[in-house]
């Protein structure tokens, strides 16, 4: 994969843009300030003869935009209704309806000896994988971004392709045998390492783009003052790409949180099984879903990811903002 180094083709971002980029530790707050500034800029007085046409166009655009956003809102919220109604319904079905309100489903779920502890296991496995993926990917992406290795993009893409083989059903025997030989069966560590291996290439692939986008000049100055590469990474590069790291962390957590097959074949003790595995046990002997338990558990099982997302996005920002500059 040979990708152009775009900095040679395009002028660097204008100075306001860069300034914004540098000061932006908390993008949530930063965005609104920027945007006000830019909105002001775009409302610069215009030549009189155009103003009327522009007003019509502006009105139409506003209506169009509002319609578009309303449709998108509907589209993205509609499927979520079931999760809001079924857990509280005395007789949940796949119908979304105003529930015959009850909390009994939560009570019967609490009777399940594995339900709540499985969420703790999900936290261990997802948190472990996310930490491993973010740290290793950040180190590797930084090095790959700063030191030119011939064919690195092609190599990265090749690893990305291989990750698609390993995360599929067909790789379960090799993964299981590998874990057996490394004595990792029935350990959280085995799950973490196996899942991290599958996530790392994409994480490096994305993070390298981020790192490519951070200007090297500060690193050079820091180097002049005698900072070590690890210090440079820690104090200069990481703060710049923090929202991106946060995004990768959330992405890794969400991926591990939903993984069923690998934890299922690697773990034996249900006391170590994550929520994704326990969710699959809430069926009858004939395979009929116990919707009262499933809907309730689905809600509980989804909440930690949502809470994490809200926390991470408030604390670190949650976007590729300012990361990838080309």
């Amino acid at each position, binding site marked *: 994969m040979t990708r152009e180094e775009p900095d040679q083709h395009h002028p660097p971002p204008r100075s306001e843009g860069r300034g914004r980029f540098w000061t932006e530790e908390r993008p949530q707050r930063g965005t609104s300030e920027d945007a006000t500034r830019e909105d002001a800029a775009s409302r610069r007085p215009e030549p009189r003869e155009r103003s009327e046409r522009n007003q019509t166009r502006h009105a139409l655009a506003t209506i169009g935009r509002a319609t578009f956003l309303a449709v998108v809102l509907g589209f993205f919220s509609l499927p979520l209704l079931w999760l809001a109604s079924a857990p509280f319904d005395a007789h949940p079905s796949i119908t979304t309806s105003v529930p015959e309100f009850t909390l009994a489903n939560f009570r019967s779920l609490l009777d*399940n000896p594995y339900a709540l502890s499985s969420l703790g296991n999900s936290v261990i496995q997802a948190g472990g994988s996310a930490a491993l993926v973010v740290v290793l990917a950040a180190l590797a992406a930084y090095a790959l971004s700063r030191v030119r290795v011939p064919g690195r993009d092609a190599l990265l893409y090749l690893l990305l392709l291989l990750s698609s083989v390993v995360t599929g059903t067909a790789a379960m025997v090799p993964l299981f045998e590998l874990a057996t030989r490394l004595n990792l069966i029935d350990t959280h560590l085995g799950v973490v390492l196996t899942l991290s291996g599958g996530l790392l290439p994409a994480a490096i692939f994305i993070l390298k783009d981020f790192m490519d986008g951070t200007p090297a000049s500060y690193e050079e100055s820091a180097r002049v003052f005698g900072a070590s590469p690890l210090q440079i990474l820690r104090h200069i590069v990481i703060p710049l790409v923090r929202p991106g790291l946060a995004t990768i962390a959330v992405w890794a957590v969400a991926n591990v949180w939903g993984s069923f097959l690998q934890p299922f074949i690697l773990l034996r003790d*249900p006391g170590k099984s994550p929520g994704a595995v326990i969710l699959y046990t809430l069926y009858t*002997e004939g395979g009929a879903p116990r919707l009262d*338990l499933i809907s309730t558990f689905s809600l509980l099982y989804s909440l930690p990811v949502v809470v994490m997302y809200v926390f991470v996005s408030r604390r670190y920002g949650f976007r590729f903002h300012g990361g990838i500059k080309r």
Partner: protein
Amino acid sequence: MRRGLAALAGAVLVLAACGTGNESSDGVTLVIAANAISGGKNAETADWTEKWVIPRFEAEQKAKGRVVHVVFQPSGVDDEQYKTKIALDLKSRAGADVIDLDGIWVGEFAQAGYIKPLPDVAGPEAESWEGWSRIPQAVQGLGVFEGKKYGLPEGTDGRVLYFNKDLFAKAGLPADWQPKSWQEIIDAGNALKRAGVPVPIQLNAGTAMGEATTMQGALPLLAGAGAQIWADGKWTGGSQALKDVLGFYRQIYTTGLGDPRLQQEVQGRDKSFAQFAEGKIGILAEGDYFWRAVVEPKAGVAPMPNRDAAVGYALIPAKRPGAGIRGQDFVSMSGGAVRVLNPNSKNPKLAWELLAFMHSAEATTSQLAGAARITSRTDVNDQVLSADPMLKFVSDKVLPITAYRPPLAVYPQVSTALQEATAAVVSGGSVDEAAAAYQRKVEAVVGGPANVAG
């Protein structure tokens, strides 16, 4: 960054520590694996294992002066996923000492070398076990492959035709309905249809229902047409018997006697349960699971408070009287789980003791926990089944005429081909084309036309 790395290293160590350390200090540890989990799928089996088997067996061993720890390893997932996990364990010469398997898997596990005949693992005690005399030959067959006993059967089941007596009364049909031919099923369906029943007949079909299509529909019908899916070393191909089966399916689903869309839905089987309970389905072919766990008045997934009065059951007739396998008038299909020993068990003798303990009359009775169910032991069945007329019916009338699936590794693919053939005719395809397509698929799956009959 360095702090981050240190934290990471710490986390890895903690994780590694979590993984080890469940070794017991003294005594012997035995592990039982089953596709059951407390609070989830087959919870009764899991609870019984944990609360009855383990403490009692440990106490019994202690009385003999041995310290034995028994650990239960629950799963409670989709059967195929459980099978995969067990196969991986056995392949790597690990896994539990006593393992729960569907009887249908015995052959393929034996062929793969994952399990061995019981006497090979546990010695002659396994041959002279008291329980063998209590288990009917046909039920023992669940754990037998190529004439050798690989596992102890836990119990069995049977398929019947359920019908809604209220709807039958409305359609002028008798409450003690017992069809004697396929045509009489169609006739009843037409009467129900005239009486305004939305779905007169539910006969599982298509791939979405999976093995339920094969077990509740295709195989009983095939038996009723006089053929077994696997006999004398050959698989049934697109024979006349198969065409009869597909023709019957086609008749039901293209003349408005069944709901073809229901067969395509992923939740089709669950919906059929709900519709039967709501009084929308007249006749439904299912196993005794339907009676025990679906329309069961209290804990069923589609409970019917008046089940005992409203739900009738009848034997599945052959195409014509005498046209079934072995010249039978009525047919059924059965399956059931078995428990096997891990040939790599470090304590095979003790594992056998545990296995035999789990299949003693006392343990079998206890496993039922008051609920009736057809166990493998006639001595237990005689006591418990009188409480439930339906299960007694299965035990007395169905089991003598039933048949079993071949326990071979390619069976799941043949089963899928059968399901696809039913799907084709249910959605209006021709019987001959579906049978020809089935023949091609089976030939490809089982290694050529030489292994296919008809």
